Each structure stands twice: as structure tokens, then as C-alpha cells.
């Protein structure tokens, strides 16, 4: 190739190509893991979607069948974590951000249904898993600031909270269909509390903002369910709803 005294030292572009090719290799490695994660996420939500047609008394069964796919998700996340920690986090994080959100969404719903730290066959709905608890579950750091490693980001957590609200809105109606008039009240409370949380945030004009703008409609949807129940005197006596 031309000597250095030419216009372009060919070494420049050879080096650039090598660097870019390295990134491509990393992408290829990550892509397989991310696809696996996507598949396992689907399996979990497949099982958990039964919650919409399962009375609370039978929920332990559903949670039990979710355990294995959940474990697969957790394993895949830790594989991803290992592979991705070799590289600057934000260089590639848009590759897996959606799937990590998916994993969180499943885990949050599972946790809300009572899957987290379940001791006996009695399930207790209404628990919000914190970002730290999710990190513990997936065995990954969360919301990192001081070092550049794979982690669960705050944005991913917040995005999955919004999905959780959407899922619970659906559950409120379906619970009524199942003759369960208690959970809509619980959901009403929970969804309002989360909505109040989101209102504290100063969101800029990004996807989080757009999605969180939709929360108020979900809150209203659930309120409508509660309204329908109270209109017909179907609301259980106060004190029965659990926090």
C-alpha cells in the first residue's frame, strides 16, 4: 500500500476496520444470548398470563409453574451480564435493553402476584419489587454510577413499572370476571401509588415520558372497575384489602 507520504496512510483504515470488526464480533456473541433471553421471557409471560384466569386460591400453582422459566431467565441474564461486562455498558446496551425490560416485567408481575419470597402456599398479592430486589434476583448490580459494568438501569426499571401497571389494569377487570372483588381494590390502590410516584419525576420528552403519560388512563380504567363494583355494592368491607 501507499507509503505514509501518500494522502491516506492505509494503516489508518486497516486499524479502523479492525476496531469496528471487533465490535461486530461482540455484537454477534451478545445477539445469541439476547435471543435466548427473549425466548425465556416469552415462556414466563406465557405461564404468568394464566393469572388472568386463575382465582387467587389457585395462584400458587401458577407461580410454581413459573419457577422453572423464571430460573431460565435468571440464568440467561447472568450469561448476558458476563458477556457484556467486558465492554462499555452503554456502547451496546440498546441491544438488550428491551429484553432486560421484558425480564423485569415478568419478575415484577411475578413478584406482585406473590412469587417473591413465598414461604407457604398462601400467596399475598400487591408487592412491588424494588430495583435492588430485582438486582438480587438476577444477581446483577443495579443503577451503577461509579463503574462501567453490566447492570439494570433505572430507565429499564421504570419502563417495566409502566408495563406492570398495564398488566394490572387488565388483571383488575379479569379478577372481577372471576368473581374476585377484592383485588381490583388492591390494584386501584397500587396503581395510584405508582402513578403518584411517577408524577414526582421530572421527565424529559423521551419514551419514558410518553409512556408514563399513559399511566393516568390506566389509573382511570381501574377506577372505573372499582366504580362499577361500588355502584353495585360489591366492594368488600374495608380492612379486607391488603397493602
Amino acid at each position, binding site marked *: *500500500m*501507499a*507509503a*505514509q*507520504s*501518500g*494522502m*491516506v*496512510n*492505509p*494503516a*489508518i*483504515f486497516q*486499524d*479502523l*476496520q479492525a*476496531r*469496528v*470488526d471487533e*465490535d*461486530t464480533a461482540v*455484537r454477534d456473541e451478545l445477539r445469541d444470548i439476547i435471543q435466548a433471553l427473549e425466548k425465556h421471557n416469552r415462556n414466563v409471560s406465557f405461564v404468568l398470563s394464566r393469572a388472568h384466569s386463575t382465582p387467587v386460591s389457585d395462584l400458587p400453582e401458577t407461580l410454581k409453574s413459573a419457577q422453572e422459566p423464571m430460573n431460565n431467565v435468571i440464568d440467561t441474564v447472568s450469561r448476558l451480564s458476563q458477556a457484556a461486562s467486558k465492554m*462499555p*455498558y*452503554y*456502547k451496546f446496551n440498546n441491544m438488550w435493553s428491551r429484553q432486560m425490560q421484558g425480564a423485569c416485567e415478568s419478575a415484577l408481575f411475578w413478584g406482585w402476584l406473590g412469587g417473591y419470597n413465598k414461604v407457604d402456599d398462601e400467596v399475598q398479592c400487591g408487592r*412491588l419489587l*424494588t430495583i435492588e430486589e430485582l438486582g438480587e434476583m438476577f444477581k446483577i448490580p443495579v*443503577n*451503577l*454510577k*461509579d*463503574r*462501567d459494568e453490566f447492570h439494570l438501569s*433505572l430507565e429499564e426499571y*421504570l419502563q417495566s413499572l409502566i408495563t406492570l401497571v398495564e398488566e394490572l389494569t387488565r388483571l383488575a377487570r379479569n379478577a372481577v370476571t372471576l368473581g374476585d372483588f377484592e383485588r381490583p381494590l388492591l390494584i386501584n*390502590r397500587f396503581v*395510584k*401509588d*405508582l402513578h*403518584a*410516584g*411517577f*408524577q*414526582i*419525576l*421530572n*421527565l*424529559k420528552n423521551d419514551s419514558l415520558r410518553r409512556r408514563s403519560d399513559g399511566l393516568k388512563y390506566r389509573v382511570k380504567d381501574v377506577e372505573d372497575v372499582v366504580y362499577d363494583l361500588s355502584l353495585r355494592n360489591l366492594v368488600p368491607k374495608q380492612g379486607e384489602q391488603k*397493602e
Partner: protein
Amino acid sequence: MGVKRSRDGPMAEEKPEQSSSPFVAMFEGFRTELDEHHDRRERIIKASRDITASSKKIIFTLQRVRAVGQAVPAFVNKKNAEYWETIEKQYKSIAADLQGLNAYRYSHNITGGNQEFMEALSFQHYLETQSLISLEEVQSRISTMSGDVGTVTFTPEDYILGVCDMTGELMRFSVTSMATNGKLPSGKHIESNKRLKQDSNQDETGDQMDIDDQVPAAAAYTQKPRTVLDDLRAIRLQLEMFEAPGGSRFATELETKKMPVMRECVDKVEKGLYGLTVRGNERPKGWMPDMGSGRGAEVESY
């Protein structure tokens, strides 16, 4: 809010939830973090814009230069000093925001400034040395400006996209020169004689292929200094051979926006030169002995 609740009486069940949500403390923590993130992002975007604006001004001044391969005239350095200073100040101001984890977090907020800076720096570098600045040279320049906290990351992607933009400047530079002086700017004779000989000896797959192809036994031709068009073609060749990772945002940007513009720039200079060549006899003398014969061969090969 507690006071308000008692006053509201019957409304108490609905209204106070905003303040009594058990998640408020958690979300307050989130708010602090998101605010920090947005502030940082805005600082970087602002710096990037300022770097872009100053770089454009530098380029504007550089376009008044008429010669290649020598130090730029004093007026250029004098006029541009303040812009270089602004750029340095801006890089220094955001260096701390772009360390560690955050280097890539905000890379798409700073890439605009980085690319424009690359364009200015590489254009001046070209005018002075008639060669393409290397990634390392750009990086070390930015590193120096960033100060002690650590350097602002300048990626290979920034570099490539900046090179594409720089071809636009070389085009303007060439077209202006052809219009005002009636010829393409080129390097010095003796020096480039040596250069081109090296090229034809060592060049196997080479960036200077087009030149070699046109004049196989290039004894006479190697006497010619490289013109800006030769250099533009060399850059074009390198960029065409460069393979961006498929499906990435960078590849899309490169293939749908930057490369077509870059090709058009080379085309424009070629068209301009074609015009000079066919209408050459109608031109005032001064450029004919230099360009005539060599360029004639080139036109035929097209």
C-alpha cells in the same frame, strides 16, 4: 398535605394519595438521579453545539486558503485562534461528564460536535500536510484539550463520519480554486515526485490504484504532484472499502447519508475538471502546461 386532608373531609380518601404513596421516597431518589442525568445530557448537547459552531467558523476561514502542503497563512491562524479556544473550553467543560460509564452513555449527544471538530481539524491538517490525519492524532488532540479529568471519547465512528464531511470541504476548496485560478490545487513537485514513486513501488492493492491504472508505465506521470482530486479519490476508495457493521445505526447513517454525499463531492470535482479540460484552450494560459497533457489522458480513460 396532612392539614389539607382534614380540611377536605369527605374527599380525603381520594386526594391525599399523592402524598401518602408508599413509593414516594423511592421515587424521590429516582428523581434526583434523573435530574442529574438530564442536566448532564443538556450540558453535553450544548457543548456539542458550541463545538460545532466554532468548527464551522474555522472551516469557513480555512476555505480562504489557496495552497496545499504548506503552513496556512498567518491571517487564518489569527482569525481562528479564538474558535480553537472556544472548542478547547467546551471540551474541558464536559470532560468530567463523559468519564467511565458515561463515555458511551452520551456518545450520541457529543458525536455531532466530535464530527464537526474532526472536519475542521482534518481540513487544516490536509491543507498543511496534504495528508489525512489519523484517528490517534485526533484523539490525542482532544485528550490534550480535555484536561486532567480524562479525555472525551472520540470513536472510530466519529472519525469516519468526520472524514466523509471533510470531503465536502475538499470539494468546495477545489471548485473555488478551479473557478478563481483555473486549476486544481496540488502539492509541490519534487516532494510529490518522491511520494508517487514510493506509491507505485509499494502500492499493491492500493489507494492510488486509479492513478496507476491510467498510466501503467508511469515514468512521466510520477513527475506530477498529487492534486486534491487524487486525494479525494484516495479517500473515496478507502471509504468505499470500509465495511460498517451491518444493521448498526452508524452503518445506516454512513450508507444512506454520508457516503452518497461524499460520492457526489468527488463527482463535482471531476465534472469541474472535465469542464476545465474540454474548454481548456479557451482559458487563459498558466494552467495549460501543468494540467493539459496529464489530464487529457485522464479524460480519455473515462
